[in-house]
């Protein structure tokens, strides 16, 4: 493990109890993200932004709910954590199940799981880009909010909107073809996959890939053509030094399913690599914050005891994966990655580039899927290993569209869960989202009057991460629940605390 970045990470943050807060602007709820959240912006006496907080106000409690359930049920159960990226939970959970059994699953099953995950990345990124973010990018941050949505996009760019829907549908179709259902698929199991892929399915997916790839390429051309119009956003939408985490492999290729953990610093230097998923706690710490159910993971080697976790701030997801990998391992995506790095000046440190990275990942996913489907063993008959309980403490990791996903289970001799921890991508981006909101607010807000377009930019800063908050809440019984009664000037009148 190497040293943390030379460039210090900014450690500003709203004090837990700030008596100086006189004015607050609250955006509640944040629109066009999954789940529920609240942003609080604190202004000082002169009306300038002093600090911001991004709060998660929805509580799920899945970690407690899953205790006492058999590990074999976990893929199906944890997939219910989310209706947008259930396959990611299926994969991480199934991999944890593989580890409980102590088996190496058949190669064909590995390929099919990879294809499913690529389909998941395509469909999720398509939703994020074409439906949630493209209205801002194409119609303008200050355009009529009533039309700044997919219908406005349909009116202005009907073909683009239609192809975005088709692309997402293709990704969903990939999932359904292999895993049996688009949402909460039952076909991914500890030990492998429930059913082999048929030749007919293989050919159908190959056929669909042609249009999917074309859409990805066209979207990239569109986005890069617009990028120069967003210089201010590139500078102010979460442009700060941080660490970046992703799965990696010995070939340095973009990794989304297997391998080991790799962390690079703000300058692209390796901060940690070769870390087995089971050892994730050696590099990741988890801090709780009183104003949100969202955990705040941080890069542990960068944070001394009693230090601010912000010193270990790291990002996950498309931006991080492209900073962690050396190459995409796919010709067109590799070409796009070269241009991406030229535009970013090397390591991409602006969260605005999440959009760009997402499009390159869609393109790379179509190419990598084509490679898997071209391999005749993808329709092989052996797709599942079977065994009993051989390990009692395991970790399963995969790359969800939004970033690295961890499932840690402890089971008894019968495979019943006695303890569980999930670290999801949106949680890992919690600290960066806070920093992003603060940066945008400081850039655009000047005084108490905030035009709608500025509010939209603040929300868009969060949407760049494509957060999925429904996955990411604390375990029940561990959350610090605080109910505060505040006077108009911010004074705390009373407070009830639990946990």
């Amino acid at each position, binding site marked *: 493990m190497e040293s943390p970045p030379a460039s210090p990470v900014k450690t500003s943050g709203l004090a837990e109890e700030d008596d100086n807060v006189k004015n607050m602007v609250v955006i509640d709820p944040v629109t066009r*993200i999954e789940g529920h959240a609240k942003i609080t912006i604190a202004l000082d006496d002169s009306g300038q932004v002093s600090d911001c907080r991004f709060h998660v106000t929805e509580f799920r409690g899945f970690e407690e709910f899953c205790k006492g359930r058999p590990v074999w049920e976990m893929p199906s159960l944890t997939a219910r954590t989310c209706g947008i990226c259930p396959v990611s939970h299926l994969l991480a959970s199934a991999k944890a199940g593989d580890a409980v059994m102590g088996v190496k699953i058949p190669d064909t099953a590995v390929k099919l799981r990879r294809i499913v995950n690529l389909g998941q990345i395509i469909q999720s990124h398509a939703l994020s880009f074409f439906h949630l973010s493209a209205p801002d990018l194409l119609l303008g941050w200050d355009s009529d*909010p009533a039309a700044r949505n*997919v219908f406005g996009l349909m009116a202005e760019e009907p073909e683009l909107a239609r192809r975005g829907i088709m692309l997402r549908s293709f990704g969903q179709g990939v999932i359904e073809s292999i895993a049996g259902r688009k949402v909460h698929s039952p076909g991914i199991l500890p030990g492998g996959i429930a059913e082999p892929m048929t030749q007919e399915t293989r050919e159908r997916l190959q056929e669909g890939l042609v249009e999917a790839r074309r859409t990805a390429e066209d979207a990239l051309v569109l986005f890069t053509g617009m990028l120069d119009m967003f210089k201010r956003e590139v500078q102010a939408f979460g442009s700060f030094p941080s660490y970046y985490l992703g799965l990696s492999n010995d070939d340095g290729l973009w990794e989304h399913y297997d391998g080991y953990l790799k962390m690079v610093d703000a300058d692209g230097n390796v901060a940690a690599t070769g870390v087995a998923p089971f050892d994730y706690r050696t590099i990741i710490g988890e801090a709780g914050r009183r104003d949100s159910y969202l955990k705040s993971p941080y890069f542990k080697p960068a944070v001394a005891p009693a230090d601010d976790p912000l010193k270990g701030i790291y990002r996950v997801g498309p931006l991080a994966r492209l900073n962690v990998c050396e190459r995409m391992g796919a010709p067109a995506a590799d070409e796009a990655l070269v241009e991406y790095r030229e535009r970013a000046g090397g390591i991409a440190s602006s969260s605005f580039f999440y959009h760009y990275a997402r499009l390159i990942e869609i393109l790379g996913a179509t190419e990598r899927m084509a490679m898997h489907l071209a391999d005749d063993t993808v329709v092989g008959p052996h797709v599942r290993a079977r065994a009993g309980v051989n390990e009692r403490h395991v970790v399963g990791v995969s790359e969800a569209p939004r970033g690295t996903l961890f499932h840690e289970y402890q089971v008894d001799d019968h495979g019943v869960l006695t303890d569980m921890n999930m670290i999801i991508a949106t949680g890992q981006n919690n600290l960066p989202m806070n920093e992003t909101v603060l940066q945008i607010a400081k850039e655009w807000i000047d005084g108490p009057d905030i035009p709608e377009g500025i509010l939209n930019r603040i929300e868009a800063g969060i949407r760049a991460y494509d957060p999925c908050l429904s996955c990411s809440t604390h375990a029940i019984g561990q959350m610090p629940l605080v109910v505060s009664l505040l006077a108009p000037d911010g004074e705390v009148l009373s407070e009830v605390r639990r946990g």
Partner: protein
Amino acid sequence: MRSSPKSGVANSLVVGYGNDLRGDDRAGRLVASLIEETDLPGVHVLSQSQLTPEISLEIAKVDLVVFVDASVETATLDISAVGPGVAGPTTMSHHADPATLLRLARDLGKMPNEAYVVSIPASNLDLGFNLSPKTARAVDEAVGAIVELVRGS
């Protein structure tokens, strides 16, 4: 409220949605699975945790679409006609609704002739698999009503 269905609809889509780990919230998906078991000709069934934009592609293929969801805002089974909705800035998070999808389907080229929302009364949305008695009764009632709708009787 109950709208009178038109007759002779054969090409239909039933979309049941909700969280099947959240007590009564699974009612819509349960109805979807029960409708699927009836194996009615010309009836396509989707079971979803939430409504997402690509469902509009399926809606654009049918003459009748029925959305089935649990609702804490109704005390009895409610079947209402629904049309394409006016979008707001919050569109297309997990709050996408039937009206939104119908408008997308229309913009994609085709709107079904008929569209209904079946709302099943719900009271318990805690983590768990069990339906409350009132919701369980409404599920059975909803299945019968939807079969009647798609048969056009």
